């Protein structure tokens, strides 16, 4: 799980071009949207596309997205549970 979280931090920074953010700025239980990282609803859509592409998991509606993308921890858990193989 920690490996997945570390991987997700890198992918989020890369996908969203968070050039002034480092992996250390992420806390597992901080909220992702509207937090100090400056992530918003458009970013969440971008991340949903990345998760689908890289992990084969669809997060294709707002209600599910709000739950899954609540924190880095909830995202990692959802991927861990739903990942194929």
């Amino acid at each position, binding site marked *: 799980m920690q490996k997945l979280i570390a991987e997700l931090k890198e992918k989020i920074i890369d996908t*969203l071009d968070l050039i002034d953010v480092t992996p250390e700025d992420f806390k597992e239980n901080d909220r992702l949207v509207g937090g100090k990282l*400056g992530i918003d609803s458009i970013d969440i*859509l971008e991340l949903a596309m990345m998760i689908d592409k890289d992990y084969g998991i669809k997060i294709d509606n707002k209600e599910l997205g709000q739950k899954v993308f609540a924190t880095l921890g909830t995202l990692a858990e959802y991927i861990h549970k739903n990942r194929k193989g």
Partner: protein
Amino acid sequence: MNGIRVFITGMGVMSPLGNGVPDLLDSLKKNRSGIKPLSLFPASAGNLFPAGEITGFEQTDEVPRTHGIALAAAREALAGRNLIPDAIIIGTTTGGMPRTEELLKKGEKGADPYRYHSTSSVAEYISDVLQCTGLVITVTTACASGTAAVKLALELLRSGKAGRVLAGGSDALCRLTYYGFNSLQLIDPIGARPLDRSRRGMTVAEGSAMLLLEAAESAPSTAIAEVMGGGLSCDAHHPATPQPGGEGALYAMKRAIADAGITAADIGYINLHGTGTLDNDLAEARAVCALFGEHVPLLSSVKGATGHSLAAAGAVEAVVCSLAVRDGLVPANTGCTEPDPALNLRPVMEPMRKKINAVLSNSFGFGGNNACLVLGDPGIRRAISPHKSAFRFEVMGSACVTGAGDMEKTLHNLKQGKDCFGTLPLADISKKLQTREVRRLKRLPRLSLALAMDAAGSAAQKPSSIFFSTSWGPLSETHDFLTKLFESDEQFTSPTDFIGSVHNAPAGQAAIWLKANGANITVTGGDYSFEQALFAAALAAEEENLLIMGADEYHEILSPLFDGSARIGRVPSDGGGALCLKRGTGSSRVLISPLFFERSTNNRGIMESLMRSLDGPEHVRSGYAAIFAGMPAVHKAECKKQLSEFISGTGFSGPIVDYRTLLGEFGSATSAAAAIAVRFAQNGALPPALAGGASCTLAGKGILMLGLGNCITAIEIRA
């Protein structure tokens, strides 16, 4: 004296509900839906959703589908009338994209097949076929475009500068919009159900509709409906999501009703924007409830039947509203079975008959753009006061970006006799912009924001409306969106790039930054985009202070494919210019006025017409100290011919600045040149390096900006 009234005297429509007005009317009466699974192109695995397609339209190879369906609607609007419109104003967001994306997908490297790519090529094509030589404006203000086009046409007719205008919108289905809206999770998998409790989103569709609008003091016998008023506003809130409280939508509705000279209580039916997305329907419902209180009129959205045809939607719905006025047919809110109690609205569930005197039609779009129209029964007598729109502005601030840098660096180079070619590094363009705020913005929005900041920063009062022009739109975002899509076999793409690919995205960003809630219009007119924006501003700026700007980015793959002048230009170049303007002539500031715009194709009398609008050769000789000539490289031979004809016709002997040989070949070079000309007018002189080595004082005379080539345009700048 009575003011000018504007009547719809012809209509044409192509939509999933039928090709032609009679078919559309029949479908509305029967509450039929035109939404079916996509068939126009194969959807990738897992991505087949319902769409709104036009059926039975014979697509030829001559032009892209958007152009084809636009012409079909235009021909119907003019059917049986042997007349040529004085001007054409068309809204579109996709333009030639249905063809361009196919070409890019198969790796087409030749430029010729892309010749109808531009959004502006739709109106130009219609104009050529119909032999209209007058003003052409292409509005590309996302899903508000069709409605905004009708508003501009209304103002053009009210101004007396045209007697008949063809106005409307056209958008054909393409991968960009189909996969783009899907990437935003805005598609309802079973088809749009506007206002329904279980609604999940919209249905992407195609369509076109054209209205022939005529100015008269009283209703002609051919009048179908009267265009009573229109209102424009901008949320200045978010690139793709409406203000939750619907404040921007409310502002536009209020303005349209006030412009029509009536009150909310006079509205008998509202044709909602009603896309079926959670956010749109909620914001619109709040705005409607705020405006009408306990007395909400009949209302419905037809997008559960037509789907959402983007820039065409407002024009298609203007036809629907005209039918409501003419035939008393109130269409149903197709697709909705159980209205969402949270919206507190009671949509019309089945088509009904009722005499309707006035209709409000809403259109809202990305960039927070809102446009509303009020259409009414032409038979009702109304006294309206004469309308005045001043085609002259004071310049409060100016800015430019060229390959040399900002205005000061550009002026420095020009004074030294050096060119300003090149493309400024992104870091230099962005140096005044907050890193985090612009992290998602690529080249064109950054250019535009830098221009807006510089121009507005130098003006005392902040502008509240924005008129943006671009020849090619955000090329980086468009390219990156399609590249990701095609690389993944149409499985994945970037929602950020989709939002950014919309031509009006830079204007939306500028509005958010400036908190500019007034009209927000983006136009595209190829090499004459800036002139279109200036005319649009003269027609539709309700606020005193406005920002007009034009920008284009050089994209190493797309620019040479799309822009013939960029292809043959010596050095890839880009940039733009911006002016903060105030209506009127009340001070000692520099003034700018749009004077002339005609297409030169099939227009033998264009020089005489130009001369008349400039008050004759003597006035040209005595009134102007210099000419700034816009001569796009791809039309250089024609431009030189036109210029020498103008010079010999007027006897003008002052300096002529061929500004593209200094700034480079890009569509918005005219915007930069206008901002530079303003600075020279303020200084009262042209630098000797631009005046053949001799000093050139303006001595109270103006600078005449002449656009040459496919169109001939004239703008006056004087201190």
